[in-house]
């Protein structure tokens, strides 16, 4: 066989046994060259085959099969053995190469790791945060110096192998343990928390914690990373702010808000006593010696009371300008009061002024367990007002019954404006009877609300500042009604009597109000009787005189027969006086005195009327004693009822008394 043909066959045989990265023509040429060298140098042919990469498992077999018919056994045996040797060397070379590659790859990985470790180390060592890596049992594997500093150790190494939980505050142990578990169980990626750690010296330290988990290549948790930020300075600042919110800046004592919350905590069934102190005449110190002295004095008082409170294990607060509160476990109230007064009464020299203080004290002793702190404070305050009313250096025990009465009145007073606004306060008319003839002399316009008498209502109105507007309203409404009656029934219409409250009786606008009401409603002046509270006249007010000069008939209400009242009757031109008194029973010595009094009043040309006379017997007693008229024999009627009555009445009542 010609060599080129042999080369072609060899090429085809070889290329199906191995990948030779050359064109067929190139391979064929290479093999042809090899064939030429084969008889002399079968070893070079073997090297060539291996360098061509004719190194498949079947490449040598294919070569022997193609070449054996042409070449003898000897060169092919040499070729085979050289081929095996070249293959070995080639494999060694390749293994060498791949090992170098592996070493390099490893070096690079290590280098990258080293860089990343160095970066981590830098972060770990220089962080302002404490960082600790713990295993899943809580044992510290590594911690930085910052953390050591936070927990009061010298260096991060001191933490190694310690249980991180040793530094948890006992209160936080359970909650933190649960949070760590949630992270390692994968319920949370990380958690943040604000907790207390306990330093090596036992001091607590407030920290922010951020905890996350480290996982191995299979994703299983292996360690926790805990970052710790020391926020105790922040915490102290926060606490300072809280302190300012809850404490009085002058004395450093708790303020009212703080005291109330402390008081609330004490209301757990332990019997307590609450003392509410008001310094007596402290405004005199402030005004006379100046506020600076006043402030110094308050500080001294605070110091003395603090010592007292400390001895009694009581809670003390400054709850007002010159008011302090003290709550203690219930003890002997009297001796505590003495101790307080002794503490305050010790003479104090402030800016060269020797001052001895005293306090009025309201006391709530052993309140029932269900009261609220706010309720207690109110009761103590009420008791303090009572004590103050009695003078200096007094104390008063809170009386729940008295308190209920006051509160009822206050509640009524506070709801009165609303009642008036909603039209719940009505004007009713009570007849005035002439005791001699039994005839109705006129009608008294009165306020009616919630079963309260007119006089109680007016007193209530006085206490709320409502009496003036409500009095003016009464004046105007009643005048308008009386004018309607006069227009409809002429002389049969009753004269209008209006009794004014104490405040309105003194009001300097009263005369203008009365005239305005008459002008607006068209009620003739002679059909109006104004009863002024006698206290206004006694105080020297001239409303009665001016009204009289304006042609309006006046009466004085609240007459009691005193000397000063009788004296007034000689000076002020009034038509009548009105009194409220038990009926003088026949035969009593009082009856005689009453007769004499009525006679005296009559002697001044003044008629004598009696209010709140409800029975014919009483009316008869008064008549026999000489009184002229009574109010209250018949119940008061609404305007509509009066109108209906007037319309039905066969005989007209007399128009004037």
């Amino acid at each position: 066989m010609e060599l080129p043909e042999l080369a072609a066959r060899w090429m085809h045989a070889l290329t199906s046994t191995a990948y030779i990265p050359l064109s067929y023509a190139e391979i064929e040429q290479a093999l042809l060259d090899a064939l030429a060298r084969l008889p002399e140098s079968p070893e070079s042919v073997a090297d060539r085959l291996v360098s061509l990469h004719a190194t498949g498992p079947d490449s040598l077999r294919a070569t022997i099969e193609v070449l054996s018919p042409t070449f003898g056994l000897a060169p092919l045996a040499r070729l085979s053995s050289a081929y095996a040797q070249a293959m070995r060397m080639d494999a060694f070379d390749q293994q060498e190469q791949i090992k170098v590659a592996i070493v390099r790859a490893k070096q690079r990985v290590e280098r990258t790791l080293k860089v990343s470790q160095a970066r981590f180390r830098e972060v770990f060592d220089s962080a302002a945060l404490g960082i600790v890596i713990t295993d899943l049992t809580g044992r510290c594997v590594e911690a930085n110096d910052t953390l050591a500093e936070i927990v009061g150790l010298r260096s991060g190494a001191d933490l190694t192998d310690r249980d991180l939980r040793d530094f948890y505050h006992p209160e936080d142990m359970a909650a933190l343990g649960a949070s760590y578990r949630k992270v390692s169980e994968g319920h949370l990626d990380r958690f943040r928390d604000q907790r207390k750690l306990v330093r090596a010296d036992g001091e607590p330290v407030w920290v922010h914690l951020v905890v996350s988990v480290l996982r191995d290549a299979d994703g299983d948790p292996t360690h926790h990373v805990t970052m710790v930020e020391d926020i105790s300075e922040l915490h102290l600042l926060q606490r300072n702010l809280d302190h300012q919110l809850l404490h009085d800046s002058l004395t450093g004592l708790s303020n009212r808000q703080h005291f109330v919350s402390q008081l609330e905590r004490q209301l757990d069934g332990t019997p307590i006593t609450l003392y509410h102190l008001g310094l007596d005449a402290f405004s005199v110190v402030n005004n006379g010696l100046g506020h600076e002295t006043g402030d110094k004095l308050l500080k001294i008082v605070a110091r003395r009371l603090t010592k007292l409170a400390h001895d009694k294990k009581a809670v003390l607060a400054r709850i007002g300008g010159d008011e302090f509160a003290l709550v203690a476990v219930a003890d002997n109230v009297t001796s505590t009061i003495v101790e307080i007064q002794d503490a305050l009464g010790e003479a104090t020299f402030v800016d060269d002024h020797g001052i001895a203080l005293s306090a009025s004290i309201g006391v709530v002793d052993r309140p029932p367990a269900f009261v609220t702190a706010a309720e207690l404070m109110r009761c103590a305050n009420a008791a303090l007002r009572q004590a103050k009313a009695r003078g200096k250096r007094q104390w008063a025990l809170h009386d729940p019954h008295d308190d209920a009465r006051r509160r009822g009145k206050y509640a009524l007073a506070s709801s009165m404006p609303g009642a008036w606004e909603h039209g719940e306060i009505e004007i009713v008319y009570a007849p005035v009877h002439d005791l001699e003839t039994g005839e109705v002399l006129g009608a008294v316009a009165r306020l009616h609300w919630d079963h309260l008498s007119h006089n109680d209502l007016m007193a209530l109105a006085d206490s709320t500042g409502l009496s003036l507007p409500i009095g003016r309203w009464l004046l105007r409404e009643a005048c308008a009604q009386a004018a309607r009656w006069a227009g409809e029934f002429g002389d049969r219409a009753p004269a209008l009597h209006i009794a004014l409250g104490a405040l309105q009786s003194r009001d300097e606008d009263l005369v203008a109000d009365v005239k305005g009401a008459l002008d607006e409603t068209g009620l003739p002046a002679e059909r109006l009787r104004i009863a002024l509270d006698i206290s206004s006249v006694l105080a020297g007010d001239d409303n009665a005189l001016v009204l009289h000069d304006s042609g309006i008939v006046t009466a004085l209400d609240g007459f009691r027969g005193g000397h000063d009242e009788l004296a007034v009757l000689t000076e002020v031109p009034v038509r009548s006086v009105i009194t409220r008194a038990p009926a003088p029973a026949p035969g009593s010595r009082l009856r005689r005195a009453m007769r004499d009094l009525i006679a005296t009043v009559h002697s001044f040309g003044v008629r004598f009327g009696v209010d709140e006379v409800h029975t014919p017997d009483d009316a008869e007693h008064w008549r026999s004693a000489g009184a002229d008229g009574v109010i209250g024999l018949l119940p008061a009627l609404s305007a509509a009822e009066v109108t209906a009555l007037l319309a039905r009445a066969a005989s007209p009542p007399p128009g004037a008394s």
Partner: protein
Amino acid sequence: MSERVSRVPEGVDTGKPSAARLYDYLLGGGHNFAADRALAEKFLRAQPNARTIARLNRAFLRRAVLFMMDNGIRQFLDLGSGIPTVGNVHEIAQKSDPGSRVVYVDFEEVAVAHSQLILENDPRAAIIQEDMTRPEAVLKAAEASGLIDFAQPVGVLTVGVFHFVPEKADPASVVAAYRDAVPAGSYLAFSHFTQDLQPEEMAGIVEVMKKSQNPIFPRTRTEVEGFFSGFELTEPGIVPLPLWRPEGTNTDDPDKAGIYGAVGRKP
């Protein structure tokens, strides 16, 4: 573990077989370890024709590179280049035109280190360590290498790699990203395991590789066609490797090739 964390090299473990070294072994190379050879033996039991398939794939690479060079391509991006073994792209290309430039891309530590050894003295070839399914990063690094001019047509080579990419990694969009990055006149060479030709053997291969670091996802002809979206297929289209522009008379049985090959041109 997040993507970011996995960028830290996971280390070198010669106890774990790699597809690149398995391929090297099937090609008769010596750049492999016992674990690779053990896997190769299993592979060969599933597909006795595996050595031929490896050879066919390597030969396809050579023919495709030369085809592209005939069409004026002088710069190549070889994605998933693996262990430098017999007949590397830069050797083929530079033998034909010494000015040809090649950028290899692989992620596996040993493959990269080995490539660096081979390429140490070649200024016109380089290896980028990057995950080829992250085209943005690959393209950025390729540009930074100074070897690829994306204004000029590029030969993109993805020979026997996309069957390692699962559907959830969206291989079609990965190919599309490379397509969009290269100018008109660029080429894509692509070979891919298929179950169309020897379904039983392919199922065996899939089973063998399932538990390795490189499981295999063979695809049908239609699926392979999908990768050429935006390319014009050159003659003879998508065919079993022995039928793709064979040199001389083909003596290999196309039905036992187990792998499709094709070259597309971006119009």
